């Protein structure tokens, strides 16, 4: 049985690793959201939701999620990507993905979502595709 002290040490070691960071910048009518970290149950999924909903409230409906620095997504994160995609589509916009890491690409492929999202490796091409 793991001791309480050991568990606390494990918990402390997770704090930095688990967080997601999101910043966004405008590229003409397209908003590029640069994400880094893990999109997982809890804060990561919540931040992604808040970011996309905030952009929609500001009438920014052409959204490109840059996942180059996202090395981990769990089922909750996948659900949040789908939720964001649907929310943007429902408002007449478009949400696309840029620069998937191998693990994220593999996840989207086995869940058959790779064919649902428009996925790009080059930012310029991705931005042009919104026109």
């Amino acid at each position, binding site marked *: *049985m*793991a001791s309480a002290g050991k*568990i606390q040490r*494990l*918990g402390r*070691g*997770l704090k930095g690793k*688990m967080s997601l960071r999101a910043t966004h910048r405008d590229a003409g009518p397209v908003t590029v959201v640069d994400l880094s970290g893990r999109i*997982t*149950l*809890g804060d990561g999924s919540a931040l992604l939701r808040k970011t996309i909903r905030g952009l929609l409230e500001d009438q920014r409906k052409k959204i490109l999620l840059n996942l180059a620095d996202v090395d981990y997504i*769990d*089922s*909750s994160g*996948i*659900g*949040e990507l*789908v*939720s964001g*995609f*649907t929310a943007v589509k429902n408002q007449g916009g478009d949400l696309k993905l840029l620069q998937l890491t*191998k*693990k994220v690409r*593999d*996840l989207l*492929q*086995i*869940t*058959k*979502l790779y064919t*649902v999202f428009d996925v790009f490796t080059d930012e310029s091409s991705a931005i042009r595709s919104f026109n």
Partner: protein
Amino acid sequence: MAPETKHLEITLETQVESVNLAEEMCLRVAEAAGFGEDDCYRIGMSVREGVINAFHYGNQERPDRKIHLALDITPEKMIIHVLDEGTGFTLADVPDPLAEENLLSTSGRGIFLMRAFMDEFDVVQGRNGGAEIVMSKKLPEPGSSSPNGERGQDTAPRQGA
């Protein structure tokens, strides 16, 4: 339990932090057991999904309920048990997340991912009536693993679960 089997168990609170804690603990055990980076990722993700399932669906996010996680390392494989205090469920009743009508569902992929990432996967009725997820991964052959996962393996899991 066979004498050469190593056993570890922990009772977790029904809270989001338990998901990260369980993942981290199992990752350390998997690394110590000799799994490479790719398999550690698969095991960590599966444990994560198992505990999310217990947290959300089994225990209904009720803090008065617990999540019981147990690990066994036998000479052949690492076996993981995740037991909740809910009312249980039947695998056959879980919708297929790959079905066209479910592709844009915002949930329901956890079971699929565990099946895809692990060698064996099942859900049985636990001792308290809740659902008990039992899954295992075969230990790497001696000399076939490296700490960096450089075994020529792809990180893509098995499909068709």
